[in-house]
């Protein structure tokens, strides 16, 4: 009984710990710059929209949002589509070299990004892709593709093989059974994979920092990290921007939390 109460108290504290920075950012983002540090208070005393307004009028925060959306969505679509075919083959078809391919893909998911920044930079430069959308989508696939394939292999393996065999005996070709039986049943898995891939792309920083040159191509993380004020750090606007960058992710997480947890843990725990 005592353990249960302790666990509860601990959990409440943890939830507070997890939520506090968000709360504080929201409060501060509505507080006038002048009072931000003068007499900080845990409760908001005066609410203004100035920071948000400035974000979109002075700084054109729409551009990084648009850039991030374009890059993350494109990468996700590419990786989930191409990845689905690969993952299906890796989960279901017997061919020599398959284990090596799986090991390779798993190894690439652990690649340190910094190790390939310079050659990617040279490669993109020679392709004239520095400071372009493809110039981000391509590098993003280094982590998104292995991630998508690895997650999808797990989802495809969970499907009972009998179903596919039944479809083939019923007269379906491999392609037909893939399209009419496997894909509809893997819908949730595909969605989970897409969500996770999107989150990873939305959050990426190092590549975006290295391969963009100006505000017109900055993604949200880069734009926020490089906010500069004339005399001091423009905390009000930075926090307004973090609130805006966090809100969509938070909504996605709240709606799909069950799936995300499943996707995050499936590959890792079962190995």
């Amino acid at each position, binding site marked *: 009984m005592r353990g249960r109460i302790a666990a509860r108290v601990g959990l409440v504290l943890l939830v507070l710990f997890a939520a506090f920075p968000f709360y504080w950012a929201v409060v501060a983002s509505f507080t006038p710059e002048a009072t931000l540090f003068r007499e900080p208070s845990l409760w908001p005393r005066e609410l203004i929209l100035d920071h948000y307004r400035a974000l979109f009028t002075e700084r054109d925060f729409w551009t990084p949002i648009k850039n991030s959306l374009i890059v993350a969505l494109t990468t996700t679509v590419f990786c989930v589509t*191409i990845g689905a075919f690969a993952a299906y083959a890796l989960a279901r078809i017997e*061919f020599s070299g398959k284990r090596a391919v799986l090991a390779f893909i798993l190894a690439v998911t652990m690649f340190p990004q*910094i190790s390939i920044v310079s050659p990617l930079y040279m490669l993109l430069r020679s392709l004239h892709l520095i400071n372009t959308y493809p110039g981000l989508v391509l*590098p993003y696939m280094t982590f998104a593709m292995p991630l998508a394939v690895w997650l999808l292999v797990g989802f495809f393996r969970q499907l009972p093989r009998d179903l596919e065999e039944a479809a083939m005996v019923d007269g379906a070709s491999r392609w037909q059974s893939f399209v009419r039986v496997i894909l509809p049943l893997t819908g949730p898995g595909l969605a989970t994979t897409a969500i996770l891939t999107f989150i990873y792309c939305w959050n990426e920083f190092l590549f975006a920092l290295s391969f963009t040159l100006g505000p017109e191509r900055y993604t949200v993380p880069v734009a926020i990290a490089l906010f500069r004020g004339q005399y001091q750090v423009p905390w009000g606007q930075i926090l307004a921007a973090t609130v805006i960058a966090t809100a969509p992710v938070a909504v996605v997480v709240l709606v799909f939390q069950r799936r995300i947890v499943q996707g995050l843990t499936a590959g890792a*725990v079962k190995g």
Partner: protein
Amino acid sequence: MKNRASGVSRPASHAPRPDNSEARAGWLLTAPALATILFIALFPLGWTVWESLHEHDLRMPWLGRPFVGLGNYLTIMRDERFWQSLGHTALFSAISVAVELTLGLALALAMNRAFRGRGVVRAAVLVPWAIPTVVAALLWRFIFDSQAGIANVVLSNLGLLHQPLVWFVRASTAWIPVILADVWKTTPFVALLLLAGLQSIDQELYEAASTDGASAWWQLTRITIPLLKPAILVALIFRTLDAFRVFDLIYVMTGGGPGTSTEPVALYTFNALLQNLEFGYGAALSVIIFIVTFGLAMLYMRGLGVDLGDSRAGKGR
């Protein structure tokens, strides 16, 4: 195999190769993804290795790109800033991973008890994981920024600080918000991994242990933790890999400063590459990071015996 005109033609079905068409389909479907990964990950990696054997300074293009063998690596071995950055990375990894695992295990154990509002807790801890590291870094930097930041105010009011600290001017104090931010952001991931491990433990084991008169502590140390070992190991290695590569967090929070006193290897490498444009030297640093990461990754795959085949393959029925 061609049939000789005079010879008896053997029906092909007598010695079919194991599913040639299947193998072709397998490779065909895998090819696009594999080609992409090879082109944008493996090929650049090879390039990095090649580059690391050269003197290549983009600021001095007239020097060309002379081959220097292991020269860059030898320089690195004598490079004090490298050893310091490695030390920073090790310090950061050790402390943050230790805290995250302990806290994560406690959180997982607490969450594993069925209770109302479990969804709320899960969502609350999942959001920090899902947001950009850059955002997390900024949120915590704001909390600790300036003498009148909320951290100073709260700590002073609690009597833990006599006078407000300027956290980011000294390395010793700058590490505290950095590690705190990392713990805040990644403990949920650890907890969820461990929770999934906990949920795969057969509840009957605990019932059996209770009937045998085992105390809660005994159950934790003799049943839960041993059976959770694979999950703990996975979390440990994932987190170590991540911590070793730490970049975003420190770039935003301290920029490696003051000076280079909180600079991790990834940031040093980044600076060598994209600030100083020393591509040869930076590549050598990259290779070192890669080798260490890869070593850890191999350890993970070997140590856990990751099952790459699926269970039914070739089992025969």
